[in-house]
Structure formats: C-alpha cells, structure tokens
C-alpha cells in the first residue's frame, strides 16, 4: 500500500517536474530568441552596439578616469605655458 502511494507520489512529482522543465525551456527559448531579435532590430535602426561585452561596453563608460586625467593634464599644460 505504502509503495503504491509512493509510486503515485513519484508519478505526480515527475509530471510536475516535467511540466516545469517544459515551461523553463519555453521561457529560455523565447527569451533567447527575443534577445537575439532585439539586437538585430537595434542594429537595423543604426544603433552602435558593443561587439564583445566588456570592452566598449556602455556600462563601463561611467569610469571617466582617463578623460578626467587627460583634461587635468591639458589644463595643467595650459597654466604652465
């Protein structure tokens, strides 16, 4: 009796997990496709997108340090000259 009950539970659990797997695959597939299409769309619109992910990545444009240094150097050159 106990085994039958456990088997039933296992089947129910397997079904649930199977459903969840399909849902997860669907979400990942749809998400991946949407992300790929988005890139194509943005490129068609003439947007400049980064090739790799780290260099030229606009998230790292916040750094600003080289620009700041160059301006400081430039300013100090002017005041010296």
């Amino acid at each position, binding site marked *: 009796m106990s085994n039958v009950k456990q088997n039933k539970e296992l089947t129910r659990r397997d079904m649930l997990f199977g459903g969840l797997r399909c849902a997860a695959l669907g979400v*990942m597939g749809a998400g*991946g496709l949407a*992300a*790929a299409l988005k890139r194509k769309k943005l490129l068609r619109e003439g947007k400049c997108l980064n090739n790799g992910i*780290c*260099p030229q990545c606009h998230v*790292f444009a916040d750094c600003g340090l080289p620009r700041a240094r160059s*301006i400081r150097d430039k300013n100090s050159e002017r005041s010296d000259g």
Partner: protein
Amino acid sequence: MNPMRRTGIILLTALIISLFFCFAAGADTGALRFPPPDFESGYEMPATETPPSASDIYEYLAVIVLAAVLGLGTYFVFTKRKRKYIWGLMIFSLAFFGFWRRGCICPVGATQNITLTIFDQGYAVPVVVIILFLLPLVLSLFWGRIFCGTACPLGAIQDIVLLKPLSVPYWLEVPLRLLGYVYLGMAVLLAVTGAGFIICRYDPFVSFFRFSGSLGALMLGGAFLVVGIFIGRPYCRFLCPYGILLRHLSRISKWKVKISSDECIQCRLCEDSCPFGAIRQPTGEASGEELARRKKMLAVSIVLLPIIVFAGGLGGARISSLLARAHPDVRLADRIYREESGEVAGTTDQSEAFRSTGDQSIESLYELSAEIQATYHQGSRLLGAFLGLVVAASLIRHTVRRRSREYKADPSDCLACGRCFELCPNERLRRQRIKEEEDLRVG
C-alpha cells in the same frame, strides 16, 4: 530509443540550429563599427584593462568548445562515471575558458548582460553571449550542474586547491547559501540601473586568469583560494549568482547523479567524500509525533511568509540610499554638492572632468541623481522582498520531510565532481565486472 539518447539528440539539434542562427547573424557583430577619432590635442587612447573583444570566429569557437565540454562532461558523469575523466575535463576548461580566454565572457558574468538586455531598451548582447548563458542552464534541466563540475573555470581553480576538505555544519551552510541570493539580487539591481557589473568587477579569480589586476582583486582571489584549501569551492557554494540559477533548475532535472549503481549499502563513504555537503542521509519512516510537529512548523512558516516578504521590502527601502551610492552619477552629484556647499575642499578627477567638459549643468546632474535614487528606492524594495521570499521559502523547505532510503546526492547542491561514486563500493564492483567482461571478450 533510449530517452537519454533522444534528449541528447534534441539538444544537439538545438545547438546546431542556434549555431546556424549565430553564423547567420554574424554580420552584425563586426569589429569596431566606428574607428577612434584622431585627437588634435595629442590625447592617446588609454589601453583597456579588459581583454579586447575577440574576433567572431573565437566567439563561435568558445560556444563550440563549451558545448563539447558539456557533452563530454555529461558522458563522463552519467555513463563512464570516472572522476579522473571529469578532473581532466575540468583542467582543460580551466586552461581554455580561464587562462586562454582570460575568463571573459563566461556564463556567470553574462547574467548581468542578459539582465541589462531585458531592462535597457538600447542594449543588446551578441547571440554568442545568449547561447553561452543559456546552454548550461538548458543542460541543467536534464542532467544537473554538469557546467559547475566540468566547464566553469572559477569552479576549477577552486577545486584544484581543495587539499584538506572540512565539512561546513548544516546550520552554517544554509544561511551562507543565502549570500548568493543577495549577490544575485544586487548584481541584477546594479546592472538594471546602469551602476555597473559587480560580478565582473569583483570576480575574485579573473586577475589570476589575466595575470594582472589591482592588489585588492589579487588579495580577494588569494583569500578565496586559501579558504578553498579547506572549504570546497566557497565562491561556487556561497556566492555564485549563476550557481543560484543552476541550483534551481537542477532541482527539476530529468536525470540525477546516482551514487551507487546498485542498492545502497549505507557505508557513508560517499558522505565523507563529498566536500560540498551535497549528500543527503536516508530519512527512514517518520513517527506520527514528528509528522505532527513538522505540519505545525509548515503552517507557521506559511503564515510567516508574507510577513517576512513585507519586512524584507521595508528593509530594502531603508538601505536604498546606501545602494544608490553605487551609481557613479549619484556619487558625482553628491561630491559636487559637497564641494559647492564647502563641506569638502578640493576636487576629484570626476568632479573636475564634469566641470571642465560642461556637457551638463549642475542642476540637471542633481535631477538625474534624484531620478536614479527614486529607481533605487523601488529596486531596493523589490530586492528586499525577493530576499524575504528566499528566506521564507527556505524555512518552508526545511519543514517538508522527504522519504528516502539511501544516501543521495542533492541535485541542487551536487556539482557533478564524481568524488562520491569514485569511492562507492558498489560502483567499484560494477567497474570490476565490466573489466572482467572486457578481459573475457579480449581473451
């Protein structure tokens, strides 16, 4: 047809289709679209600290190699069941994805890029990155965390230094695992708001892979490796945000790592061999008293769930101003304000650059800062609620008792390293039988 083979064929077909799609979209990902300008002032473009973007062929190569490693890893873990093969594959991954590709791009860091692609209208990642991110996740739905055990260079570098493994007590392991959710939540929040990619910025091992990095980064990586001598893969188990995704997907994986090929003799060798605390003891039959106690605990946990989520949301909102300071514009606005009001003397590189370029007025900077802080307020509240949900779900999970009669590798924590079945006496007998059969055939 064998269901495992059938799924393998499906996955292979999916990979071929995605690679075809990748090549078809290849024209998009050309080299630099706009060459750098000639500066009349004599300014020279600074050298980037991050590796240059590889040409397309290398990106595709990375996808192909990752797919091959994952495929081989699955074969080694589920069919060959030999630790030395898994270990060899892991070392190859460390050399290829770690030292040769200098740790970039990896699926772990790609979490942020994918997040930004979802939330930022003007940002999109190359198809290669999407595949690199999704491939291990899809695989984990079928075979668990094969990526962690065989393909991840961050895991591999920690695995090779694991010399004197000590077990972390369960009461400590559970709260430590929550740190990964905090890190994942923070990474998503900071990526969405454009503050930066903290997973990449604070990657403890990337400085080793690139043979360069700040002293702080080297010390962080060194500290993880020293801890990793005694605690199995501390970064993977307690911090890795990608590991969180893999953990949840592996929980529903179709096939799970089996320790014993025959009936478990409960020798506990597997439990001792696992340095990641992934082996679960058999629970046996529960007494009526214990079941009643657990039901009561479950009811209390369910009642507590909304309270914890709400408290998390409130707590998140309270620390929003602190989190907002991670954004460079907020920091700059704050600095400018303090300089203008005379609270601080002198300038910083950033504040000086802001004034010198004159692209933006101070008022508009303050407005921008206020907008960003408002976004952080919402985001932090959501982050807090998410963490509250994780804590409450963890409480509920620990009240539910699952029957098991043998020692099992918990699919959500098992990193598919192969240590457990290497020591299993049943597995050794199976190998001996196979060897004898082979000898007979040859003879």
